């Protein structure tokens, strides 16, 4: 019995160690579907190992503490700068990614050359409102909806300090990256008013809540809410008129990546127009590849939650790293959560 156990453990351990090249992807769960990954594996005779994380912080902490061995990671735009400064990322060899010329530059303007030196854009999503319009009388598309007492306890805000304070800042006409103490204080007061009317700060369950009608208004990511809309057409998604936060998920290659070549192949594979188009329709995120747009059904192409009109784009702003000044936001968030 003991021999058998030892033998089986031995077999299991050695079984993992084969000579097929492996691509270690460290990303968000559910971002890239299994069929796409299998097709890539077949084409390049390799194995893709996906490890997932739940927040940028987790991923950053892992790489920072020396957890190397990943070939490709998916940080949000504001983490690329931090990680590049720490020397955790390789420069991207643009020559190896011929598809870059097909990128839709019109949606990539906020990304600085410094960021594009160390990462390539993968997908774009927006913070907005998930709504059950049939139960909201005289709806107005504004963040101020959180001020309405007649929707009390039927609304949620994200449990994320930059997103919540950011949207309050936008409502007041300020930048989401402001470092002015006064502006942040005003936004904090606004959030405190919203807090009286919301059920809770919530990052996960709001999707179920809006699907079942437990909540009528939720702050959330376009990609998440549009996936709920697909299942329940009573739900809708809107980006408020004042503007909102836009998030870029970027691909980056860590400095100690064991197999960067395979990572480049993977990117080229993923950005083929048909592959990117099918991925977009699954995740409802915008993959900025112009050629892929032609492979989308017209209805999807016209979905303003994926392709916001120009007038909305002007009012979208990504969150940036503020260095020391982020302390102001931490303090504000502490006073909100108390």
């Amino acid at each position, binding site marked *: 019995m003991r021999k058998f156990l030892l033998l089986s453990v031995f077999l299991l351990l050695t079984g993992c160690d084969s000579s097929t090249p492996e691509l270690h992807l460290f990303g968000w769960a559910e971002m890239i579907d299994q069929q796409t990954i299998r097709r890539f594996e077949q084409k390049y005779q390799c194995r893709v190992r996906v*490890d997932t994380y739940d927040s940028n912080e987790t991923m950053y902490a892992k790489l920072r503490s020396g957890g190397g061995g990943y070939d490709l990671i998916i940080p949000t735009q504001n983490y690329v700068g931090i990680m590049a400064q720490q020397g955790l990322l390789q420069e991207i060899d643009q020559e190896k990614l011929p598809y870059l010329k097909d990128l839709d530059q019109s949606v990539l303007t906020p990304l600085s050359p410094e960021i594009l030196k160390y990462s390539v854009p993968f997908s774009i999503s927006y913070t907005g409102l998930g709504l059950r319009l049939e139960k909201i009388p005289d709806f107005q598309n504004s963040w101020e909806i959180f001020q309405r007492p007649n929707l009390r306890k039927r609304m949620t805000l994200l449990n994320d300090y930059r997103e919540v304070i950011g949207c309050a800042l936008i409502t007041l006409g300020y930048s989401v990256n402001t470092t002015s103490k006064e502006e942040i204080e005003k936004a904090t007061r606004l959030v405190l008013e919203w807090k009286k009317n919301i059920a809770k700060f919530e990052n996960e369950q709001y999707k179920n809540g809006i699907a079942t009608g437990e909540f009528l208004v939720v702050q959330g990511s376009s990609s998440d809410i549009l996936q709920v809309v697909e299942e329940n057409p009573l739900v809708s998604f809107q980006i408020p008129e004042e503007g909102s936060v836009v998030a870029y998920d970027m691909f980056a290659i860590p400095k100690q990546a064991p197999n960067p070549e395979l990572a480049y192949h993977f990117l080229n594979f993923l950005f083929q127009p048909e592959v990117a188009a099918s991925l977009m329709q699954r995740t409802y995120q915008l993959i900025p590849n112009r050629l892929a747009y032609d492979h989308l059904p017209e209805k999807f192409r016209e979905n303003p939650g994926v392709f916001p009109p120009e007038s909305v784009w002007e009012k979208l702003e990504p969150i940036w790293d503020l260095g020391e000044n982020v302390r102001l936001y931490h303090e504000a968030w502490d006073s909100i959560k108390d």
Partner: protein
Amino acid sequence: MRRPRFSGFVSIAVLLFLYIPILILIISSFNASRFGGEWEGFSLRWYVRLFQDREIWHAVQNTLIVGVTATVISTVLGSMVAYAIFRFKSYLQKISFLLTYSTLILPEVLMGMSMLLLFMTLFVPLGLTTIIITHTTFCIAYVALVVLARLEHFNIDVIEAAQDVGASLTQVAFKIVIPMLMPAILSGALLAFTISIDDYIITSFVVGPGSSTLPIHIYGMIKFGATPEVNALSTILILITFFLAFFTQSLTKESVV
């Protein structure tokens, strides 16, 4: 006659309180709706998806490799620790007991952090090996304590009697001590195994590429939907856990007699 009725009511209430969430989870794993809440019909689609999800099975495989290996190593070491603490009573054993025991009460974050620092200082690449070493470290304490509890009732005269009739040390160990302690060793091993397979915090520090265990993988999944699949997986895990718990219980029952 009122008191038994009241205590019966309390125990039923407590059981309901403990098991209703689990029941809801099991029911919703059969719900066709992705976002739960409303019942959209009985469906096994999440189980089908679960069985097609390669990453989950890779995580299950990792969890089992870690669990089995760490359990085997820590059971051997832990039992030896317990026996040494029981058999010899100098200050060394007191220190040894204290050190073993303290890994139980040490905050998990601290444990994970210090293991990570150790591996980084020694340039050990993070992966299955580091997880196995770490799990062995904290499982030893559980095994040792379970075995030690059993040793409290151990009659040392048996060993001396055997030695009197000429049994060697190996014979004493394999023919007397180990068989007599077997129930405790096994339930210690099962305890170690269950703790190993659901550890998240410590593992999250020492996990490396391609070595995500099930708890790590599930935590990553919850963030981006796919929850019904997690429900299906949890249902299966609950069944396995109940089975293991039942098995452990019958072992400890035996040891009382």
